[in-house]
């Protein structure tokens, strides 16, 4: 699969021809609509809500939001994409803005936020005076502030590799979100990753866990990685501790002496 992020910045990549191609492709339309449905399923909003669509493009995802009676405000960096959205007479409000520069809304504006195939663009810095980390943290901090307490955000994105996936989730957690990841069709070429974010613990989510967002959904297994590793450390012997550290270094690719019966034994005085 070719990655448009690697070729050009988004405002230049999605020019008039690319934007039209993207919007009229029935394959992309079908994928976008199924992913937006999934996002809404994860949000499980109680009624008509105000939703922020990050990287709304030509409003393909917005149409789905409309069909659920929600009102949405979309932001995108590509003027051509927004031009196509105007031609298609979408009902949502459009904003030409760069998500890496923050979210230009006051605190607690939205009930929820969705983003379909956009966040991976933040992992690329197009000029030398910005860094991906800086853009990611500005984006997530802005997003955290603009969603009301107890609200949720679901961001679908295509990370290039594990490092990108790690970078994006770490930035979200650092901004204060409660974060969980849902992967559809894992291990296949069509794997789709949804980052589910919760804001604060008040409101609808009081006393609930991030895993509750997917509870009751069909075919979803919960893998909780938050406590992994911590429990192991309790009550381990000195020998286990040494072995664990050696294992860790081995995984890092360091040169580690092989284990023997003398490993972690004390050096006693011989006579």
């Amino acid at each position, binding site marked *: 699969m070719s990655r448009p992020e690697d070729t050009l910045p988004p405002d230049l990549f999605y020019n008039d021809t690319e934007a039209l191609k993207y919007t009229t492709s029935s394959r992309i339309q079908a994928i976008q609509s199924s992913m937006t449905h999934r996002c809404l399923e994860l949000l499980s909003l109680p009624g008509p809500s105000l939703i922020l669509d990050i990287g709304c493009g030509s409003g393909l995802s917005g149409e789905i939001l409309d069909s659920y009676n929600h009102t949405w405000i979309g932001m995108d960096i590509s003027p051509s994409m927004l031009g196509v959205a105007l031609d298609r007479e979408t009902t949502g409000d*459009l904003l030409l803005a760069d998500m890496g520069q923050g979210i230009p809304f006051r605190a607690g504006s939205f009930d929820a936020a969705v983003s379909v195939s956009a966040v991976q663009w933040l992992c690329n810095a197009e000029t030398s005076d910005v860094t991906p980390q800086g853009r990611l943290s500005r984006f997530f901090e802005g997003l955290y502030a603009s969603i009301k307490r107890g609200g949720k955000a679901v961001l679908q994105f295509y990370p290039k590799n594990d490092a990108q996936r790690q970078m994006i989730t770490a930035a979200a957690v650092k901004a204060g979100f409660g974060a969980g990841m849902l992967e559809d069709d894992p291990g296949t070429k069509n794997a789709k990753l949804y980052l589910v974010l919760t804001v604060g613990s008040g409101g609808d989510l009081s006393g609930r866990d991030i895993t509750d967002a997917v509870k009751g959904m069909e075919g979803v297994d919960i893998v909780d990685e938050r406590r992994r590793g911590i429990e192991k450390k309790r009550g381990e012997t000195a020998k286990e501790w040494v072995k664990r550290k050696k294992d860790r270094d081995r995984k890092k690719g360091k040169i580690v002496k092989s284990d023997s019966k003398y490993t972690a034994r004390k050096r006693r005085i011989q006579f």
Partner: protein
Amino acid sequence: MKILTTNYLACAVKTCKSEPAAFPLHFKDAELAREELELNPEFIKNVLPRIDWPALAQTAAELGFTTLPSQKPENLDEQTMKDLHTLLMETQVMEGKLVCGNCGYEYNIKEGIANFLLPNHLV
């Protein structure tokens, strides 16, 4: 751009964060249009608590709507609901500028789309 959206928009310039004058943004040379939309009472009820009423009154006054009550309506009857719907959802700004009251930065609005792209040194 809907009036509803302008009630949430704040200046994106870094130095304007946490400045009270940066919200709401003020309209300049605004051209208005009206687009008929279906009334969605549940949505209005949902967003009303989060609407900054003094800011809305200020924006409305700038655009020439003076019929807005000075206090946020407590209980919504059908007529207030309709009026709010007309103002928040149906009234749209097509051309003009949004100006920050703190730094004076002007955000252009063209065909109903506001340009919030900032030069890098302001972010």
